């Protein structure tokens, strides 16, 4: 279990995360939503222990995050970052193997190799194992990174899996595949926390949604309870209709069309 209590994060004059508390449980996907600059990524950096909170506490499985050594933490939580630039020509398999680095000293054991094969199968990357990572498409590279991150925590019960915009810029098939994979991993017993931009995707897959604005938590609950025209307007300053999909009973969000009139801006159409 992940317990976050009154966490605040400041850099210089700016307070990026203000007094946020929540709990995350194994078996569930929690999605963080919010406009650009709402503090989503900063919160993620706190959860991954990349940055230390200025105030408040975060504990993972009952132990404060600050009390973990880097090595212990590597066995309990993994992060899929938004951007992963690799300049050296590793094979896809070698990249996935790096996920097991915290588990072995010089040579991977058969257990490590089994896990590598298993996660590559699950993420659909087995066929590119021997290919050069640099020759893969953006989507394929991201899948290989996902495999690497899974390999890292695969045999740790109740591990924390952080996904920072895992599907931004990816096609619709990859988005669905990745989120349904995340769903399955949650069912396996991981705690999954993901930052997403697509509210509909969040509504489809999240067990709970946390909505941030200006570094504060505004809403937190099951998608059906908190996704509404009001909450979306509060957080995104965008008018939207919220329907219920009759087939899945999940929320469907349709932003209202914003119309700009030429006359409002003192513009004239080109005369053709």
């Amino acid at each position, binding site marked *: 279990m992940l317990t976050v209590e009154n966490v605040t994060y400041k850099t210089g004059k700016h307070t990026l995360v203000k007094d946020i508390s929540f709990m995350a449980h194994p078996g569930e996907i929690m999605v963080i939503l919010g406009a650009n600059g709402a503090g989503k990524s900063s919160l993620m950096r706190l959860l*991954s222990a*990349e940055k230390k909170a200025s105030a408040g506490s975060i504990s993972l499985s009952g132990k404060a995050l600050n009390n973990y*050594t*880097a*090595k*212990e*933490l*590597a*066995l309990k939580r*993994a*992060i899929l*970052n938004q951007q*992963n*630039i*690799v*300049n*050296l*020509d*590793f*094979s896809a398999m*070698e*990249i996935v193997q*790096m*996920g097991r*680095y*915290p588990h072995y000293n*010089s040579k991977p054991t058969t257990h490590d190799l089994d896990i590598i094969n298993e996660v590559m199968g699950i993420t659909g990357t087995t066929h590119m194992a021997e290919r050069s990572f*640099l020759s893969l498409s953006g989507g394929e590279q991201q899948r290989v990174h996902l495999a690497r991150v899974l390999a*890292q925590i695969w045999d740790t019960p109740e591990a924390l899996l952080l996904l920072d915009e895992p599907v931004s810029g990816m096609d619709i098939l990859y988005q669905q595949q990745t989120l349904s994979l995340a769903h399955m991993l949650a069912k396996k017993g991981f705690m999954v926390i993901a930052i997403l931009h697509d509210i509909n995707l969040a509504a489809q897959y999240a067990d709970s949604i946390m909505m941030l604005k200006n570094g504060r938590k505004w809403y937190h609950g099951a998608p059906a309870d908190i996704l509404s025209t009001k909450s979306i307007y509060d957080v995104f300053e965008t008018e939207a209709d919220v329907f219920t999909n009759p087939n899945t009973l999940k929320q469907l969000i349709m932003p209202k069309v914003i119309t700009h009139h030429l006359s409002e801006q003192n513009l004239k159409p080109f005369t053709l």
Partner: protein
Amino acid sequence: MKNGLIYTLLGIGVFLTAALSLSMGAMKIPVQDVLLILVKKIGLFRNMPVDEQYDTVLTIVRMPRVIMGLLVGAALGISGAAIQGIFRNPLAEPGLIGISSGASLFAVLIIAAETAFLAGVSNLLGYYLLAFGSFAGAGIATLIVYQISRNDGKPNVATMLLAGIAVNALAGALTGLVTYMANDQQLRNITFWLLGSLGGATWQIVLCLIPFVFVPLILLPFMAKTLNAFALGETQAQQLGLPVGRVKRWVVVLATMAVGASVAVSGIISFVGLLVPHMTRLIFGVDNRRVLPASALLGALILTLADMIARKVVAPVELPIGVITALLGTPVFLYILIKDKKKIAR
């Protein structure tokens, strides 16, 4: 390919090249005599007769030179590979990004100071001073380039190369300044050193070089796993629980130690640190657990080969060895640049 096989093949290659290099020169010594003399040196076949003259030339002139070539080559090969690991880029080469010229500047300063205050640079202490000075110069240059090239925690290649140009230019200018301010005796010593090649090798220099090369050769391979993870980015490597900060510091210290001492004894030899790791990666893959040791072996082989060519082409005169390594290395540099144009811009 199995690791054992790779190292055995490379080892045999290094040995053969070294034997060939020992046999070559103004006085040709047949390879079998070279081998016999070497074998006798380790105490075997004591009663086989060898030509006294061969023995003398080999022991006093050629062996220090070849051994120095092997050490310098191994040092440049492995430190090139390691530096590319922390810069996360195959173009980071000690000569290109100013590490060697930083070392060179400090070496010139030391020579000027030694000439003024001590008797000269011909004793062992003098060589150690020179090596430590170059080590410091190399370290300072690396830190400057590394700090400048980082943008938001990530090294940027374009900035790295530009910072390298600046450091090279600055070190070059300061070196020029020192030579112009030098008195006759200092100038003579500095010029003699600046001309430096493997030609000045003596057993004393070899003795001084050994610790500076062997410590990095032994320790750097232990950093290989973390250096691999560096390819993912420093944050990602940290998330894997690897000692990123510590490894970075050690790599800088060890690599600049090797480069610095190499510059101190043989001057700037460019492009070995680029050419060798690149070839190793092409042949054996990019896993640093192989690249680091294999680059050391291949570096020793290539530099010995280059020295052989340098001595042969316009014999009896010698070409500076840097000419040969640049001739071999620049095409590789351009090739990486053209092949990876898009990827490298990031």
